[in-house]
C-alpha cells in the first residue's frame, strides 16, 4: 500500500518521471495509431498506448481498473480487433491520400481548435486542490468499487449486463447468415457442375505459373490467369496478385538491355510491338 500513500496527496518524483516518459510514449503510440498505413500496425500501437494507460490508472490509485484495462481492453477487445483485421486482410495497406475535398484541412483545424480549447479550459479551471484517494481506498480499492457498484449503481450495473447480452445477440444476428434456400444435395451439385463449363477439376493455384504463392492466379493453357485458382477470401479482398505482366516486363527489360548493348535502339520487331500493345 505504498503507492496508495503516494497517490493520495502529492505526486512523487518517481511518478512524475514515469508520467513524462510513458506519457510521451503514449502520445507517440496514439499518433502512430492514426498514421500507420496498415491496420494491424495501428492496432498494435493502440494496444501499447492502452497498456501505458493501465499503468497510469495504477498510478492514480485505480488498481482494479488498471488490471481490467490490461485484461479486458488490451487482452480481449484489442484481440477482437486483430481478428477482424485478419479477416479483412492483414497485409492490405490503406492509402492515406485524402479523397474528400477539404476534409483533412477541416479535420486538422477542428482538432487543433478543439484541443486548444480543451487545454485552455483545463488550464482555466482552478484544479489545485487534490483530495487523493487515501480515504476512499482505505478498505481496498476493489472493495470500495464493489460497494458502490452493488449499492448506488446497482441499476446501472444491471442494465449494463442487459446491454452486454443484447450486444452479444446483436453481434450474432449481424454476422450470422441465414440460409435462404435448401442446401444443395451432392447430386444437384454434381449436376450443376456437369452443366457448367468446368467439368474437369478446377485448376490448382500455381499451375503453369512462375510463382507458387497462394495469391497468384494460375495460368490457363492459353496463358491467361484464372482467378478461380485463388481462394475466395483473397478474391473478395481483391488481393490477387497479377504476375503475368511481370515476366513479360522482365523479358522486355532484358531485351532492352541487350538491345542497348547491341546498339539496335530504335529498330523494333513486329512481335515486340504486339507485346507492347498488350
Amino acid at each position, binding site marked *: 500500500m505504498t503507492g496508495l500513500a503516494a*497517490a493520495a496527496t502529492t505526486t512523487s518524483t518517481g511518478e512524475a518521471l514515469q*508520467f513524462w516518459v510513458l*506519457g510521451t510514449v503514449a*502520445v507517440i503510440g*496514439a499518433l502512430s*495509431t*492514426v498514421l500507420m498505413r496498415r*491496420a494491424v500496425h*495501428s*492496432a498494435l500501437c*493502440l494496444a501499447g*498506448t492502452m497498456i501505458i*494507460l493501465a499503468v*497510469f*490508472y495504477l498510478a*492514480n*490509485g485505480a488498481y482494479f*481498473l488498471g488490471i*481490467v484495462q490490461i485484461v*479486458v*481492453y488490451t487482452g*480481449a*477487445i484489442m484481440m*477482437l*480487433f486483430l481478428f*477482424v483485421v485478419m*479477416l*479483412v486482410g492483414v497485409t492490405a495497406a*490503406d492509402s492515406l491520400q485524402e*479523397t474528400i475535398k477539404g*476534409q*483533412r484541412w*477541416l*479535420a486538422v483545424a*477542428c*482538432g487543433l481548435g478543439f484541443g486548444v480549447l*480543451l*487545454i485552455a479550459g*483545463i488550464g482555466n479551471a482552478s*484544479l*489545485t486542490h*487534490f*483530495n487523493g*484517494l487515501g480515504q*476512499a*481506498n482505505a478498505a481496498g480499492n476493489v472493495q*470500495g*468499487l464493489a460497494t*458502490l*457498484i452493488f449499492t448506488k449503481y446497482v441499476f*446501472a*450495473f444491471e442494465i*449494463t449486463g442487459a*446491454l452486454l447480452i443484447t*450486444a452479444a445477440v446483436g*453481434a*450474432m444476428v*449481424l*454476422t450470422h447468415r441465414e440460409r435462404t434456400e435448401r442446401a444443395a444435395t451432392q447430386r444437384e451439385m454434381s449436376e450443376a457442375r456437369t452443366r457448367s463449363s468446368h467439368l474437369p477439376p478446377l485448376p490448382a493455384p500455381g499451375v503453369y505459373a512462375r510463382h507458387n504463392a497462394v495469391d497468384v492466379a494460375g495460368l490457363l493453357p492459353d496463358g491467361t490467369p484464372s482467378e478461380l485458382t485463388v481462394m475466395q477470401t483473397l478474391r*473478395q479482398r481483391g488481393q490477387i496478385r497479377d504476375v503475368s505482366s511481370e515476366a513479360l516486363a522482365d523479358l522486355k527489360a532484358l531485351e532492352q538491355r541487350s538491345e542497348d548493348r547491341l546498339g539496335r535502339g530504335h529498330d523494333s520487331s513486329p512481335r515486340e510491338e504486339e507485346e507492347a500493345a498488350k
Partner: protein
Amino acid sequence: MNPVNYLYLASLLFTIGAAGVLIRRNAIVVFMCVELMLNACNLAFVAFSRMHGNLDGQIIAFFTMVVAAAEVVVGLAIIVSLFRARHSASVDDASLMKL
C-alpha cells in the same frame, strides 16, 4: 508534478483520436480511434476520481469500459457484415446517406 497533467494528456489523446476518426477511411482504424477517445476519457475520469477523493469517477470509467466492450462487439460485427456485402472496409464507400 501536478496531477492536472493527466488531464492534459487525456485531452491530447482525445483530440488525436478524434482527428483519426476524421482522417482515416478504414473502418477498423476509425473504430480504433474511437476506442482511443474512450480511453482518453477514462483517464480523465480516473484523474478526477483522484482529485475528488471518491470512487465515482472510477465507476464511470468502469461502465465506460463495459459499454465500450459492447460497442466493439456490435461495431465489429457491423464492419464484418459490411465487408461481406461490399468487399471493402472503407467508410467512404458507404456513402448512401444522401439523396
